[in-house]
């Protein structure tokens, strides 16, 4: 149905249809963000022998994040006097918009996808790179040393880790012969790419953690050195937008890993095919998400100088070797 709509003449009908589906996706994502923050706090709590939020909304603290968001929206909106006002306002928008744009290409099931692009994977990488502007601008516009340092760190880190991130998926692209995410899922009907590309998967997981700037790689917002990094001066809903962008990226990156390495909506075994694809996608999604939450409560933060060395001297050579190996395997066995 979506395919027909995409190729028909433009009109108000399509506009309203896409607007409403986009709005629904936004609400779903907001719901995900709410509960992934709660899940993160709960998982971290259990791993550190604590209980975690348990007051608001029953024993499991189900309404804790909702209350937090309400508090943020009610807060006074402060713009520092010496800040660069237009950019200070624009920066959270620039940071958030691409994080929602990348969701368009992720195929949640074989029918539920917003844009079936031929260059889907490249689109994801390219658009997600735009968030760096928002972070750097936010850091600069705050007119605060710590913010600027956080922004500069985020820029260096995101640009450096984008290279191993892209190189590690080149193996997947080589085996599929396409950049289209639908084709990549269909190519995994016999075996998931985590089995064929274990090295690529590990590099991708590490580099994506750095791209999301989550712990071991959360230097841009390390609270013990930089107060809070690029969003030190932000309060209220502007700050909420930065956080929202971060968690929407978590959603998108988890979805992307599910699609690239865990076979997307495909069932685990052929005889389990009666379970709908959306359930499979959700299950795999939760497993990958749990890995990210697990990382956060397990690893200490890296040192700034080790961080760059790790990207350029360890991850990148391994990624290049992985491409060579994949090309060799493909020409010999496929």
């Amino acid at each position: 149905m979506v395919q027909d709509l995409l190729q028909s003449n433009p009109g108000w009908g399509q506009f309203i249809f896409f607007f409403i589906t986009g709005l629904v996706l936004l609400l779903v994502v907001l719901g995900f963000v709410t509960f992934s923050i709660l899940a993160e706090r709960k998982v971290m709590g259990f791993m550190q022998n604590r209980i975690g939020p348990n007051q608001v909304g029953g024993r499991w603290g189900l309404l804790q994040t909702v209350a937090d968001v309400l508090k943020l929206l009610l807060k006074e909106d402060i713009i520092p006097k010496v800040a660069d006002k237009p950019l200070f306002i624009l920066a959270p928008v620039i940071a958030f918009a691409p994080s929602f744009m990348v969701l368009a290409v992720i195929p949640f099931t074989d029918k539920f996808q917003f844009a079936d692009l031929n260059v889907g994977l490249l689109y994801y990488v390219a658009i997600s790179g735009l968030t760096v502007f928002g972070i750097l601008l936010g850091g600069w516009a705050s007119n605060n040393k710590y913010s600027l340092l956080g922004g500069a760190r985020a820029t260096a880190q995101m640009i450096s880790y984008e290279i191993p991130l892209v190189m590690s998926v080149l193996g997947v692209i080589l085996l599929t012969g396409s950049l289209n995410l639908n084709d990549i899922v269909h190519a995994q009907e016999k075996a998931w790419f985590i089995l064929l590309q274990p090295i690529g998967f590990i590099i991708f997981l590490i580099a994506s953690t750095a791209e999301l700037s989550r712990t071991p790689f959360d230097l841009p917002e390390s609270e013990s050195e930089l107060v809070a990094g690029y969003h030190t001066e932000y309060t209220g809903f502007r700050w909420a937008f930065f956080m929202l962008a971060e968690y929407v990226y978590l959603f998108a990156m988890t979805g992307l890993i599910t699609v690239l390495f865990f076979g997307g909506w495909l069932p685990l075994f052929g005889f389990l095919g009666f379970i709908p694809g959306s359930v499979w996608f959700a299950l795999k999604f939760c497993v990958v998400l749990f890995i990210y939450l697990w990382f956060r409560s397990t690893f200490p933060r890296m040192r700034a100088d080790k961080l760059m060395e790790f990207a350029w001297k360890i991850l990148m050579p391994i990624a290049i070797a992985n491409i060579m190996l994949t090309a060799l395997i493909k020409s010999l066995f496929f």
Partner: protein
Amino acid sequence: MTFTGEFLAFMILALVAIIGGVLLLNLNKVVHMVVALIFTFISIAGIYVLLSAEFVAAVQILIYSGAITIIMLFGIMLTRPYDESEEKGSRWRKAFLFLGVVGFGFAVYIGIYNFPIDQVPTTLHENNPMQIGKAIYSKYLIPFEFISVLLLVALIGAIIMAKREEKGAEEE
């Protein structure tokens, strides 16, 4: 002229690109200029999408987002914070500049308006990345290899220059 979605999209993208370019020249702070530049580059990528060159569009954003951030970082590091450039030039000079711009625009308009462009039916919109790959690795293989050698030379040159500077600093 029929009013299609493509026309609407082109007008919006072209307007944003041009306004971004004009703002780049007129704004006072370096970082503001770079933000204007971002809008120009992204809307040019959008125009590539309208021309069914999705691959080029994605690469445009991928490459330029890195490049612009570097420019922005240099802009931040090499200029004083909140430094504003001053306006120079007299009224006469501005008037002459305006005349020159109008003349140039007129000449380009005349040149382009009657320029014969043959519409050749192509299949570029089908599987665009694969077609680019095939063209690069068969028809344009040698230029492609030359470019890679050139980039390698530039990379090694940059490394050598950086190293030498470090040594000089140690001797001092």
